[in-house]
């Protein structure tokens, strides 16, 4: 556990000293800041609608799908390419700890990225009445869904030894999860299949529930269990080297 914690700290530090991370942060704050500003104009300053417009729109989804692969692309793929992974493995740290530490570091950076937008909400809160409950729940949902997307990135990174290929693969995984939402057009209200599609759909969770202030425990169960499964698969992929 201690080794995993040290590895997590090392990973987080390596993220923050990497120029890629800062470029991602600059781009993220620029694009999301612009998105929030334009959304605010579009909803004529209605702060409750702004949460849904700002975090449920296409720009946010693009960020949600693209950012985790960019953060995680180097996690295992780069180390694998440089041969550093073998060195790490012989230190006695388990595969699961390596995967967990790298995922936790990537996810922490992802959370920090979204928290970078909080000053903007602070400014809005100074001039109007913010629905803090809705904002809190929305962020919670973004973090939970982001956890699964980061786990996809770790799995993709474990499967390849090229960071760009890893990013591409992770992006495909994420888009696949994102596209589940559009299966709903095949079903009618009342169909059980439609309820399952909604259960699995991140767009439904964020757009229809979390940005409206509704917190459903099922969001945590689905995305939490999916994250665990993906991390488990990543650990098994790493374990392949030992055979």
């Amino acid at each position, binding site marked *: 556990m201690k080794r995993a914690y040290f590895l997590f700290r090392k990973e987080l530090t390596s993220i*923050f*000293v990497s*120029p890629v*991370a*800062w470029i991602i*942060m*600059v*781009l*993220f*704050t*620029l694009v999301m*800041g612009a998105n*929030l*500003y334009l959304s*605010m*104009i579009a909803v*004529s*300053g*209605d*702060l*409750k*609608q702004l949460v849904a417009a700002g975090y449920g729109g296409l720009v946010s989804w693009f960020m949600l799908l693209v950012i985790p692969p960019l953060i995680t692309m180097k996690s295992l793929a780069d180390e694998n390419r440089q041969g550093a992974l073998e060195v790490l493995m012989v230190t006695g740290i388990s595969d699961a700890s390596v995967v967990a530490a790298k995922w936790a570091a990537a996810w922490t950076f992802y959370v920090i990225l979204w928290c*970078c*937008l909080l*000053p*903007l909400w602070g*400014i809005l809160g100074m*001039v*109007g*009445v*913010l*629905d*803090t*409950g*809705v904002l*809190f*729940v929305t962020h919670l949902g973004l973090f939970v869904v982001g956890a699964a997307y980061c786990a996809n990135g770790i799995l993709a990174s474990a499967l390849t030894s090229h960071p760009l290929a890893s990013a591409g693969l992770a992006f495909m995984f994420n888009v696949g999860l994102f596209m589940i939402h559009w299966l709903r057009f095949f079903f009618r*209200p*009342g169909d059980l299949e439609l*309820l*399952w599609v909604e*259960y699995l759909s991140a767009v439904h969770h964020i757009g*229809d529930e979390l940005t*409206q*202030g*509704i*917190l*459903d*425990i*099922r969001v945590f169960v*689905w995305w939490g*269990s*999916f994250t*665990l*499964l993906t991390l*488990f*698969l990543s650990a*098994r992929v790493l*374990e392949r080297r030992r*055979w």
Partner: protein
Amino acid sequence: MTSELTQRRKKARKHVVAQILLACWCLYVVNVWAFHTSVRSDWSSDGALTVTEQDKELVRSLPGSVEVVVPLNFGPSVEDQLRTRVLLKAIRWLEELSAIAPNRLQRPLTIAVNREGDKWEIERQEYSPVLEVGDVDQIHFFHDGRRLSLSAEELADFKFPNVLEPESAAEILVDRSREVVEAALRQVVKKDWTRVLVSQGRGEPPLDSRQRNSLRLLKKDLEIRGSIVDPIRLSIEESVPKECDLLIIVAGGEGAFVPFRSSVERGIERQLEAGGGVVILLPPVGVCGLEGLMARHGISVEAGLIAENFPVKQGVVRPQFLGVGRHLDPSHPITAPLNQENFTAGFSTARSLLVEKETTGLLYTGPGAWLERDLGAPRRDLAEIPSPKVLAAATEVGEGKLVVISSYSAVLPDFWKGDVRRFLLACFDWASGENILPPGSGREPISHQIELTAAFRNSFFWTSFLVLPISALAGGLLVAGLRRRGA
């Protein structure tokens, strides 16, 4: 040695495959359990989507499945946008209710008519011939062959710029979507339909005609609320059938209205004594033959028509034969749930009622109205002193209920809208003794609106476009500098 390694690898592979299958099975089991175990909570400050125990009880007690179809037109005007917002809010509430028991209340099927015209046609065929092309911007509930429809005006009170206040902003005054949606659910599954009879054959506007001077919108509105609406020829039948919950007498129409005979009056009296409801809508001139009955129950009609000064073009004020109900009795069951502020119900060619102690005046004009006895052209003489006039009155006759409305014109298609329609529906509800559609008190929406002044927009623009990205860039440069120094 090599074969032993191969054996081990094979064994390991089998183990890994078994582990992965087991993990997938665990994921499946956990999620199937979670799928059927929904624990939801509303974190919004207004609690608009908070589901109470009563809500859960209501949805779980629905017999069979209720389907909901909402064709939306997404009109571009400010009025349309406000209506759409209210309808979307009601849809969201229905979705929340549907999450309680999806097999009892289906998720609403929303169709953007102006974008998905084909889908709208397919759905119309599915529910044909019940849904008409024009049934857009309404929430349609279907259960067991019955249909109930709600428009945005029933879900909320709006304030739109009008002739009197052309500069005022469009806004939602009171949002009742929760209460009205729940009432509609109760109504659509109700087994006992309200039986409504409308008098015909003495010059009243026809019930089913397509012409302008008809009662078709009134009939449609009552039917989609779970009522059976039939005509009754009082001049022939002279008595009201026992199963009638509500008798509506529209005493006016094209040409001369033939007053009722005393035998009809006795029949109506028996309907009241039997606990039925009677609503009388008065003709603009002459008598309807029921003056004696009304007088016995404390309601009499003054001679003349209500007139009031109204602004017309370019600030010119002109007297018109129009009684605008602005003040409601705050305590009567009909009017208490209605929005008391900004209530504006216009009645064309309205009579003025006089009410006695036992009777309640439901709706009053403003203080500027007067009783004009010269029916040629309204013009206030010095003798005609303006004062609030009674436009509607109600009284209980034993178990029965009597409501008198001062103008029949309100039920014609051109006037059947807005506050007038809501007020009359509330009167019908009360008189029939059925809770057809309780309007509910509703709530004023909590505003999270901020004023987008030029200064604020500028500061927010620079913060979002420059300050945050530059801060991130500065952080990156600082880290790079520190690393270089450390190296």
